Each structure stands twice: as structure tokens, then as C-alpha cells.
């Protein structure tokens, strides 16, 4: 028997265990969609924009650990995915993105809705390919899922010309895959690890620097056990946040630009840095020459290309984080570093994190209120990008029951809401809260509709300061308060002049309460710290009762800065407190 490529596609998804597709229709996938119509066991989700779509698939993948699947049409459908592909690539998130393509005989003709999406995404994906031969379709899909989820995970794009998909061919789907140019590392070099452990034995002031790799490997429990056994202080990157409970006595916060004083000082003073699953991004290191000046560095990463790229390390170890941590547990004896830890605790007491707030709602209080309300509930927080993200990093309490999903590497505004949609679809049993700025929320707020039709009780917190706060903060510090393009309520007069008055008097746009209402839901506005708890609780109750996303808009002063701050390219000594 012979079947069309479109039919085989459905078989392939089932064989790969796909239960959810984030899809948007178009001319070049309409036949494919017809095969998926009523396909049992596959939940089809229709987001309202392809960027929201891929962030939703991304949030789904991060929340579940499964591969997120996107299906969009050719041309604009495909190009709207690009930001989301890059976002998943830099945070190592497994996605398979299927894009419709014009029939092969039209390729190169500037046909309607034709773009070279393989060429466009080549440098921002783990792997991209166009299926040019019907008989290769099954193998290419198999390879796509394998590449996306193995090794260092990442997004894979498979471009599907309509004629190839219509062609009749074999029904079989391979059970195994071997790719001669792709052999992800599944072992660890014990000799290298033993060298690292020798350094560890000698070290007086060791530290762990934990990156997103530990969260991706889901090795949080093992890490905690190792940290306790060796009594070594831990700091994390943004992507590593939550790899160990944030209230653990040996955890001292995020390192880097908006990390805390203590975490950065630990890096500055340590004599051994053991980094697991962190690629020493510039936001982590600041000025390379002065980063961890006294330390020997052990770098464990699944990707050999991540090692000795930014920082030259003493002991490189290529390994999956979970495997490395498990082996370290096997090969080490308990250690004590009482004096070193006691010193660190003193720094922490001297320089605690806190927001100095004179007007508007206190961002720290917002996060602490969320901690309080969701303390006993399994919760996924998602964050957009900007000041609110840094406050979420600084003040949200994360542990085995409370996870934070955020755009780390690419810093993609508009990620918060759609990723919450995807996370909730993947984890119905958990509560999902998105934390956003007023700028980022507007980038994908159409996804409220997806939340409504999918019946998702999401609480969307917006920290509204009517500015693009993170950039405004730079303008405050380095550009004498000249707020070019950061005032979201910067009206022009009838003669075209800019009216730049204080934000309190400005007419205010959009009205997020009305935005929520226009999506048949409810919005709440908080202007005083005292109202935070009752309002968020009320909003949560409404969301759960009516099974739809709600908005809680908290009015924050634009003068509020994220502190501490090591400005880009600077050293620990330049930290602004």
C-alpha cells in the first residue's frame, strides 16, 4: 500500500509520542491539516500569531521536558517563527518546527508565500532541512526529533514542499536512527573528572556555578545532594535559577549583571570554580580579564564548543550535567567548608537583596506576595524579559514545586504570556503564573485569546511602569535621563512635538483592565502594596472558576531600578549597589 506524505506525517507524530501540536494554517499546509483533523490523541492548539505559537511550544517543552511541535505554513508563517527558533536555540529547548513550503517546481520562482526558510534559519537552529524526496520523509522526521531532544537539545526545522507531501509512497516509519555526522556525547571522561576532584580536595574556597544545563538535565535533586555532601556554596546563572532551592542555606543567588552582591563576590574570591551546564555568557562574566581572578576553573558542559570559548578553563569535562553530578556523588567523600561558608553568610547579611521603593507598588513585594500565595501549590512561573524578569529572579522562591521559565540567552520580549499558555497546556495539574512588563506583554498579548479558548486559568501579572524599564534604567545611568524611545506613553502634540511629562498625569494606553475585558475575562489594577495579596487571590480565584487568563496590573514607578548592577563589560569592583 502507498500513502501520501501528509498521511505518513500523522503516523510519524504518533510514533514520536506527540500529543500536542501548536499550529497555524495556510495554503501550503491545508492538506496536511486535513489529515490531522480528528486524528485521535493529538491536541491541536491554534495560537493567534506564529511568534506566540512557537513560544507556546517552547513553554510546553520547558514545562514537560517533551519536544514542542510547531506546524505553520510557508512564507510569513515560517518567517514569524524565526525569533522563537533563535530563542529556543540559545536556551537549548527541544522543538521540531514543520513549515509548509511551495511545491518544489515553484521553488526559486518568487512564488506566492515562498521564502527560503531553511536558509533564513540555518544559523539560529540546531538543524534545518528541506525534505526533497518523498521516500526520505519518514527518516527526516525521525532524525528531526532525535536531533532536537538528544545531546544539547535545540530547535530543528523541517521544510515540507507541498508536492512532496502529496506524493504517494512507503508507509513505514523507522524505529532507529543513526546519523553519521551526529554522535551526541553520552559518557564522561573519568580521568578528567578525577583531576577535577583532586582540585576540589585541595581547594579552600570552592564554589559551584550552575547553569541551565542542570535544569535541562533535570538533575536538581542530585545537585542538591552533592552540594550538601561537599558543603560548597552555589550560585546560578539566570538559566540555572531554581536548580537548587533558592532558600537552601548553601545557595547564594544569581551571578552576573543583575545577580546579587554575594554571588558575585563568591566568584571574585573563590579559589576553585566548578561550573556545570553554564556557558559563561557575557552577562555572567562581565569583563573577562577580571572574572574569578583567583580561581582554577572546572567546566562541565555537554557541548564541547561551549568549553574554553569565553573563559579559558583548567579542566574541561564534556558531559551531561546529570551524569557528571551522579559520578561526582559516587567518587567523593563528604567535605566541610565551614569557615568559607560562614564568611559568605556575613557578606549576605551585610548586602542583602532589597528594593528601595518610594512610590508605586514595590516589585519585591509583588514577588513575595506570589511566594506567599503559591507556597503550597505546584506552580510554574514564566517571565517575560526586562526589569520584572530580574526581580522575579531575585525574589521568587523556587524549588522542586516552583519552577521559573524564562528567555535567558536571547532575551526575547513577548515570551512571558505565550510560554505560560504552552506550559499550562503541558501541565494542566500545575498552576501557571506569568510575570510581564507592560512593554513585553503588548508584544504577544493576542495570546490571551488562546488562553481563553483553551480554557486556561492563567494569572498574568504585569508590572506596569509605562516605560521600557530596562533600557530606561541604562538611560538614567549613562545618558543623563534622555529617555529616547523608552516612554510607552510618549504622546505627540498636533504639531508633532513630543510631550514628555510625568507618567502620573499622562493619559494611559492601553488600559490592561479593558484589554482583559475585551477577551471576555477580567483585569485587576493594583496601586498599593497593601492590595497585592487580596487582589492576586481574587484574580486567581476568578481564573480558576472561569477557566481563563486574568490580568493583574501592578502600577510600578518608572524610577525603580534593578539593583545591584554590574554594567555591561565591567568587573565586580564596579558593582552598583
Amino acid at each position, binding site marked *: 500500500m502507498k500513502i501520501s506524505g501528509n498521511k505518513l506525517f500523522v503516523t510519524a507524530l504518533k510514533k514520536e509520542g506527540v500529543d500536542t501540536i501548536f499550529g497555524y494554517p495556510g495554503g501550503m499546509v491545508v492538506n496536511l491539516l486535513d489529515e490531522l483533523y480528528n486524528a485521535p490523541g493529538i491536541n491541536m492548539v491554534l495560537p493567534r500569531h506564529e511568534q506566540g505559537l512557537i513560544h507556546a511550544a517552547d513553554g510546553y517543552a520547558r514545562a514537560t521536558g517533551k519536544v514542542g511541535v510547531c506546524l505553520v505554513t510557508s512564507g510569513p508563517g515560517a518567517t514569524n517563527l524565526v525569533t522563537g527558533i533563535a530563542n529556543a536555540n540559545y536556551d537549548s529547548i527541544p522543538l521540531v518546527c514543520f513549515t509548509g513550503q511551495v511545491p518544489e517546481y515553484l521553488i526559486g520562482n518568487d512564488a506566492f508565500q515562498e521564502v527560503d526558510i*531553511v536558509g533564513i534559519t*540555518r*544559523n539560529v537552529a540546531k538543524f534545518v*532541512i528541506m525534505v526533497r524526496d518523498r521516500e526520505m520523509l519518514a527518516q527526516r522526521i525521525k532524525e528531526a526529533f532525535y536531533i532536537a531532544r538528544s545531546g544539547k537539545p535545540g530547535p530543528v526545522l523541517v521544510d515540507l514542499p507541498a508536492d512532496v507531501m502529496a506524493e504517494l509512497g512507503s508507509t513505514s516509519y523507522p524505529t532507529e536512527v543513526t546519523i553519521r*555526522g551526529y554522535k551526541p556525547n553520552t559518557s564522561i571522561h573519568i580521568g578528567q573528572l578525577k583531576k577535577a576532584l583532586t582540585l576540589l580536595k585541595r581547594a579552600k574556597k570552592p564554589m559551584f556555578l550552575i547553569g541551565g544545563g542542570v535544569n535541562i538535565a533535570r538533575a536538581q535533586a542530585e545537585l542538591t545532594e552533592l552540594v550538601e555532601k561537599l558543603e560548597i556554596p552555589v550560585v546560578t546563572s539566570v538559566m540555572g535559577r531554581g536548580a537548587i532551592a533558592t532558600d537552601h542555606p548553601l545557595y547564594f543567588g544569581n551571578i552576573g549583571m543583575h545577580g546579587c552582591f554575594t554571588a558575585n563576590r563568591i566568584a571574585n574570591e573563590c579559589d576553585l570554580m566548578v561550573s556545570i551546564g553554564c556557558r559563561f555568557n557575557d552577562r555572567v562574566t562581565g569583563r573577562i580579564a577580571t572574572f574569578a581572578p583567583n580561581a582554577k576553573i572546572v567546566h562541565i558542559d555537554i557541548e564541547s*564548543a561551549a568549553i574554553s*570559548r569565553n573563559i*579559558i578553563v583548567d579542566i574541561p569535562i564534556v558531559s551531561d550535567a546529570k551524569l557528571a553530578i551522579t559520578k561526582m556523588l559516587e567518587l567523593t567523600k563528604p567535605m566541610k567548608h565551614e569557615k568559607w561558608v560562614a564568611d559568605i553568610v556575613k557578606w549576605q547579611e551585610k548586602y542583602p537583596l532589597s528594593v528601595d521603593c518610594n512610590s508605586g507598588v514595590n516589585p519585591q513585594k509583588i514577588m513575595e506576595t506570589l511566594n506567599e500565595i503559591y507556597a503550597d501549590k505546584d506552580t510554574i512561573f514564566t517571565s517575560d524579559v526586562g526589569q520584572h524578569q530580574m526581580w522575579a529572579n531575585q525574589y521568587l522562591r523556587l524549588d522542586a514545586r516552583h519552577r521559573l521559565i524564562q528567555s535567558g540567552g536571547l532575551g526575547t520580549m513577548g515570551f512571558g504570556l505565550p510560554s505560560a499558555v504552552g506550559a499550562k497546556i503541558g501541565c494542566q495539574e500545575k498552576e501557571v503564573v506569568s510575570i510581564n512588563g507592560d512593554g513585553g506583554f503588548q508584544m504577544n498579548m493576542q495570546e490571551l485569546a488562546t488562553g481563553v479558548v483553551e480554557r486556561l486559568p492563567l494569572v498574568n501579572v504585569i508590572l506596569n511602569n509605562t516605560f521600557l524599564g530596562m533600557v530606561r534604567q541604562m538611560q538614567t545611568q549613562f545618558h543623563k535621563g534622555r529617555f529616547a524611545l523608552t516612554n510607552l506613553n510618549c504622546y505627540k502634540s498636533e504639531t508633532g512635538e513630543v510631550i514628555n511629562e510625568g507618567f502620573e498625569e499622562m493619559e494611559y494606553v492601553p488600559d490592561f483592565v479593558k484589554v482583559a475585558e475585551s477577551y471576555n475575562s477580567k483585569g485587576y489594577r493594583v496601586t498599593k502594596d497593601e492590595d497585592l495579596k487580596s487582589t492576586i487571590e481574587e484574580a486567581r480565584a476568578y481564573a480558576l472558576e472561569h477557566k481563563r487568563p486574568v490580568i493583574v496590573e501592578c502600577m510600578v514607578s518608572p524610577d525603580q531600578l534593578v539593583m545591584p548592577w554590574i554594567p555591561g563589560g565591567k568587573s565586580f569592583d564596579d558593582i552598583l549597589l
Partner: protein
Amino acid sequence: MREVSNIKKKRWVSLYVENRIGVMARIASMMAGKSYNIDSITVGKTEDPTVSRMTIGLSSDDPTFEQIKKQLNRCVEVIKLNDITDAPTHMKEILFFKIHDCSEFEKGEIFRIATVFGAKAIDYGIDSVLLECVATEGKNNDLIKLLMEKFKKVEVVRGGIVAIESISMTDR
């Protein structure tokens, strides 16, 4: 800290890649996207029609070159990478050098130069000569430099370097 040299040096890589549409573009655009400068790149099908072999020449310091090799290895399309910078190889480039407006006397000189450099005259006109030289990149550079000093109206086409590992010879 590990000893690394930050001196720029000429490097050679021999790559086995999948023989598919877009693989050449994949390699070239990865290199461009990461600001690695390619001096020369050649590609062609091998004895196995599903595999192409590329020879890439570039100049870089040690840390950058290490990173380039890792990034190339990361590409799913790359089957195998050989660093042949210091390996015994046979390495040749084809050069076409066309000289216009040359006198009878100058033609004699061109033929003498060709003999010394091991180039061949493969085409001929009333006042023009076409030379072909299959030699190392360095030798072709020397030939071009010499001819450019003397002749003004010229055309140069270089094929890029191809390399293969030696069997028993240890000299390049």
C-alpha cells in the same frame, strides 16, 4: 591556565560532509556568522557520491581555531574533520593567468618564467598568453606577484586549494 598562542597562523582543515543541497551554504554561513575569515574553500564529490570533501584554508590564532573546529564538528552535516595544518599532505591549487598586450620579447620572458615555475602555456594569441599553474598556494602567490610587477593588463582566476593526506611523503 593552559598555554595558548594568540599568533595568527595559516590553518588547513579537510572536511567530510554530507553531499546535499545547502551543506556548502551551511558551512560558509556558520563561518561568516561567527566572523571566521575563510581564505579558501573548495568542495567536490568523493568516491562515495553521498559524501563531499571540503578543503578550507584560513588564518587564525590558536583559541579561535579550536573554536572553529568545534563549531564545524557541531554541524550535523559534518561527518568528519581532519586538521591538516601540520600533517603531511599533498596540497595544490590551479591558477589561470592571462596576459594581454604583450610583445614578442615579453612572450619569450613569459615562457621562461613559466618553465622556471612549472606553469604551462595552454592557450595563445597574437599578443596574449594563457598560463596554467598547478602548484601550492605559496608558489602561485609568487608567480602572480612576479607577473603583476611586469604586466599590467592581466586576468587572474584561482581555483582554491585542494588537499589530500600523503601516503609516504612527509614533505608538502
